[in-house]
């Protein structure tokens, strides 16, 4: 059975996304000025994921890392839209085992409580309808719950595969204290929380040996350590009094590093680990952990990483995402991240977000010819020079 692959996402009337559609690959990088709509895209995918596989309310959105705001904000409010559209509309198309599927839904935003209502939802396989309901045709159904995972018409395994793939989506925003295990993750999902909680345990799962070789997931430990250039080794263990200040609260397990510049090569320490190292471990754990979501988003991929490290991690991370048949959506402000992307690989796609005159977000895939890339024109420079778009206009 071939692997699940997203084909197209359409979002209408959600925040500043008045009418946006794009064709994602496996690694999808969004660049654009602040306020250009990058984060709204990640959030809209969160709503779509919740709508398709669960329900849309405060709790389900929170679980996906969709920032909460008043219901009115979820719906586009533009003066230029004369007759305000009644519903927020989403659709997602994917390919699985040789067939093309599409899920579509129309929702109304909450008025009195916090639950979005399903106005209509439908599923097609190879263009033929396999499921559909609308407010008018089936008023007796619960209009606060999505039917994709409960309809009998969709009980075949390909639908549960798709539901699992899309339903596990979350927006990760790692935070240093949570990564260090000194504060608990407010949104602890399995295996890693949206803020990086329980990273140590996830790393533990990934550390193993294959014959003579120490491995981190599918990576040789030495390749992994190349990304953390100050460390000669790392492991996960119970905190010992000797390495931690007793005043520092920790979760159960901590990540310990061996500093290659320290004389005492026997000692591991967790609390002093650099932010960059923790972020690298976090990204790659998400990419490789078998229990981590197949589809997820990272807001500000470059956060806390030195530009060159961010470039290298972008490269390794993309490779792992593709190997694992995952789908990731990420945003970045760091030009060097782009240089870590092999755009000649169609699975890796770069998008710009801009606002048009009406304030509506426009998303465009950017492609750069092999010829231009070979002519010493790195993507970072093209971005900075403005030819890719996705830059603030007036700075």
């Amino acid at each position, binding site marked *: 059975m071939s692997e699940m692959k997203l084909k197209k996402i359409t979002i209408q009337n959600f925040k500043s996304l008045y009418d946006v559609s794009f064709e994602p690959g496996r690694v999808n990088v969004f660049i654009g000025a602040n306020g250009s709509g990058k984060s709204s895209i990640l959030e809209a995918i969160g709503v779509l994921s919740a709508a398709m596989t669960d329900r849309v309310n405060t709790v389900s959105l929170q679980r996906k890392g969709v920032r909460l705001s008043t219901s009115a904000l979820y719906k586009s409010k533009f003066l230029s839209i004369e007759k305000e559209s009644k519903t927020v509309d989403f659709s997602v198309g994917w390919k699985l085992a040789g067939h093309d599927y599409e899920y579509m839904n129309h929702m109304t935003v909450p008025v009195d409580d916090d639950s979005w209502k399903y106005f209509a939802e439908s599923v097609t396989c190879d263009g033929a309808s396999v499921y559909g309901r609308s407010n008018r045709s089936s008023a007796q159904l619960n209009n606060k719950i999505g039917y994709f995972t409960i309809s009998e018409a969709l009980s075949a395994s390909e639908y549960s595969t798709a539901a699992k793939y899309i339903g596990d989506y979350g927006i990760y925003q790692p935070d240093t204290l949570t990564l260090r295990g000194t504060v608990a993750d407010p949104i602890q999902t399995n295996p890693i929380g949206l803020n990086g909680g329980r990273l140590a345990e996830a790393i533990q799962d990934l550390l193993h040996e294959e014959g003579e070789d120490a491995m981190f997931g599918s990576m040789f430990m030495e390749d992994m350590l190349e990304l953390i250039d100050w460390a000669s080794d790392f492991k996960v263990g119970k905190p010992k009094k000797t390495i931690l200040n007793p005043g520092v609260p920790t979760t159960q397990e901590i990540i310990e590093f061996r500093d290659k510049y320290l004389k005492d090569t026997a000692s591991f320490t967790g609390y002093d680990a650099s932010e960059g190292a923790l972020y690298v471990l976090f990204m790659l754990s998400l990419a490789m952990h078998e229990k981590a979501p197949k589809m997820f988003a990272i807001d500000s991929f470059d956060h806390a990483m030195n530009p060159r490290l961010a470039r290298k991690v972008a490269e390794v991370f993309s490779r792992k995402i593709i190997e694992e048949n995952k789908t990731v959506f990420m945003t970045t402000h760091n030009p060097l991240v782009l240089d870590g992307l092999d755009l000649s690989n169609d699975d890796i796609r770069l998008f710009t977000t801009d606002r048009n005159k009406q304030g509506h977000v426009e998303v*465009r895939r950017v*492609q750069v*010819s092999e010829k*231009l890339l070979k002519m010493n024109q790195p993507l970072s420079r093209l971005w*900075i020079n*403005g*030819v890719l778009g996705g830059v*603030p206009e*007036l700075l």
Partner: protein
Amino acid sequence: MKKVIGIVSEGPTDYLVLKAVIDKITGKENRYLPLQPEPDMLGRYGNGWKGVWRWCKETESMGMLMQEIQPSIDAIVIQMDGDVVRKEKEVHCRCETTVCDEKGKAFPLYCDKAAVSKCPVELPCLSHDEGIPAMIDHLKSVLETELENEDMAHIAITIPCDSTDAWVVAAYDGLDDIEMFQDPWDRIIAKGKYYHGIRVRGNKKSTNTYQLFSGKVAECWNTVTEKCRSAEILEKEVRRILM
């Protein structure tokens, strides 16, 4: 599909005016890429007229940039204010009447003599006729020298005279011969605290103010092209490269 237009301009306020005007001429909303001033903290090309000139010199192949990226750039519009002709010595470095032992050796902006204020050019330069058309032609040829290897089918140069500000004045006040009027920003627009009810800070051209000005320039574009030869030329050029 929207047309994609790269703008190489002296500053953000010129960018705003060009955007509004080109939308007006083409009759639709286009997508604009600010190529210069470079939106980068390093300011590699610098701002203003020097930045524009340097961009033209250092961009190896505009044709390549336009074709090898998708969505591709349909046209590039390059802007330099006409006042550069009367104010700046470097743009006369290669002129007939200039006598300088560095002439033809260094790119004028990198000339050592200019760097230590020893440029022998005397202003006004006597190599050109007086008047707006000569001013425009000269700056155009200065930039075209750097674009020798480019296919100009989709590249236009615009030289607002005396500056883009003159178009603003033409739009609001409909003055004849406004192009001959030097420094319209200081002497007309920023003379008082308000210009046609819009708050103006004399020392700084704010983009918010210019957002309003550029709307007016587009709205009154017919008047602007009647009063300004430089605007009329831009209209023709936009039609040539985009329509």
